[in-house]
């Protein structure tokens, strides 16, 4: 028996008039994955998430959460899904605790205080539990949004730019918490514009551009495929380096791309033989930003 995908998206399109916010998007996120959904502004990330949550009805295609169709079996689909929205929305009439109790109730849990306290603790919100939503700072409101998405212990959690406008300390706290949720078996889908964040957290990544998936692979494979290691040097005789294929950068630095470390050996040997005179040297790891720029450029 095969396990159903945590999220199965099958040729989903969403058209707003002539605008194709999503076009024939298909992808599966498997249970337990930490999945990144990347793309420039307007790529369709939020639209895709809204379609998973039933907030937006696809023009065509279908989506299932843990095997439950978002349309025909919406009750079960929604029970499996927790969504942290991109916008900082809140209900100004209530306190944090009231809001979380109400949200629990919407999902069918009349008494949920133990779990609510646990979430509040993890998100450092206990001191603010009885504060009105209006009295919270932006970062705290963001945390409440995370808490609201978790009240019903959804196996699948989707976070739409959860770290936008969040300070460094909280960002680290938040990632620790989300990593813990992932270790505990929750499937995580994340969108972010901080690519080093995505690189550090996500096991697999889909890149969206103009409503289409333009790259879909494990983070490792993407890095291997698109990004190269780089060796940057400052030389006594820069023209020697240029002749060997170095690219001039600011401050007299020259950059060389390479695939394997064996290539570095060869390069260093040639520089020495030519008497280039290495004054300074750094090695650069491949990073997702490079991959992103590359993919977006060629897509």
């Amino acid at each position, binding site marked *: 028996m095969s396990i159903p995908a945590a999220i199965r998206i099958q040729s989903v399109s969403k058209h707003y008039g002539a605008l194709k916010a999503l076009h024939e998007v298909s992808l599966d996120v498997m249970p337990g994955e930490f999945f990144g959904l990347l793309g420039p502004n307007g790529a369709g990330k939020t639209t895709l998430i809204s379609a998973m949550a*039933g*907030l937006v009805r696809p023009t065509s295609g279908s989506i299932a959460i843990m095997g439950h169709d978002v349309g025909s079996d919406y009750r079960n689909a929604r029970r499996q899904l927790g969504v942290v929205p991109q*916008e900082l929305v809140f209900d100004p*009439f209530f306190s944090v605790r009231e809001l979380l109790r*109400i949200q629990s109730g919407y999902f*069918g*849990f009349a008494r949920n205080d133990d779990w609510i306290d646990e979430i509040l603790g993890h998100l450092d919100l206990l001191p603010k539990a009885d504060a009105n939503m209006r009295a919270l700072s932006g970062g705290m409101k963001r945390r409440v949004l995370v808490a609201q998405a978790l009240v019903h212990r959804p196996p699948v959690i989707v976070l739409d730019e959860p770290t936008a406008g969040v300070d460094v300390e909280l960002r680290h706290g938040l990632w620790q918490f989300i990593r813990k949720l992932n270790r505990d078996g929750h499937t995580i889908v994340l969108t972010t514009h901080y690519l080093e964040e995505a690189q550090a957290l996500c096991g697999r990544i889909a890149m969206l551009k103009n409503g289409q998936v333009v790259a879909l692979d494990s983070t490792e494979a993407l890095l291997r495929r698109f990004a190269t290691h780089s060796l940057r040097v400052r030389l006594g005789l820069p023209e020697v380096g240029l002749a060997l294929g170095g690219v001039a950068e600011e401050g007299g630095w020259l950059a060389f791309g390479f695939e394997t470390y064996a290539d570095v050996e060869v390069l260093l040997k040639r520089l020495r033989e030519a008497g280039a005179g290495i004054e300074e040297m750094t090695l650069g790891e491949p990073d997702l930003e490079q991959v992103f720029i590359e993919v977006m450029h060629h897509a």
Partner: protein
Amino acid sequence: MLEERATPRASGWVGFRTLLYKEVLRFWKVSFQTVGAPVLNALLFLLIFSHVLDRHVTVYGDIAYTTFLVPGLVMMSLLQNAFANSSSSLIQSKITGNIIFVLLPPISYREFYAAYVLASVVRGLFVGLGVLLVSLPFIELPMVYPWWVLAFAVLGGAILGSMGVIAGIWAEKFDQLSAFQNFLIMPLTMLSGVFYSIHSLPPLWQDVSHVNPFFFMIDGFRYGFFGQSDVSPWLSLGVVSVCFVLLAVLTLAMLARGYKLRG
């Protein structure tokens, strides 16, 4: 986390109940504005009209004008506040974006409808009761058939609650909502016989009143107090019930399609 712990069973009924509770709590938290203000309003109407007209006008033979007026005022306040409850709640949630918290959970569109309309009825009944209570020191008000009173109060509240859901979903800005209120709800209420018996109108206007469903709500409601009315209470009940069913069907159809709520 999920597997380790015995997760309490989720029950669908709780979702509806919570939404109803939240909608009631929302107006109750600001009851000074949502209940107090309309009651004060009605009281002012009552003081002014009764002072000006009471000695000169009687209705249904020997009923003093102020006495006749009170059920109309009660019903008018009830209807307007039932409308205000669902419509303002929905438009606020839409504009601030927090409507998603109701759209993400496994709440069906029928539960959604029932919760918003019932909360409207509750607010309407609170306001109506408030108006009734503050009027009592001024008049001797009979209540011949309390069940008729209650039936029309609930149905009227449900009709205006439904209209509020429609308006709240349709409107994208507050001024569109007030247009709905000023150009539809207010005229229909004012021309329904809140302040007069339609028998005191010229025949043409009597006929016009008879196509206004609000007339039947108020006339039936008044029957419960005095045992007298312009038309049979059964006719009023029939008209009002049909209106409610039609509005419920329309609203449910909008919600089922996700009109303006699920893009």
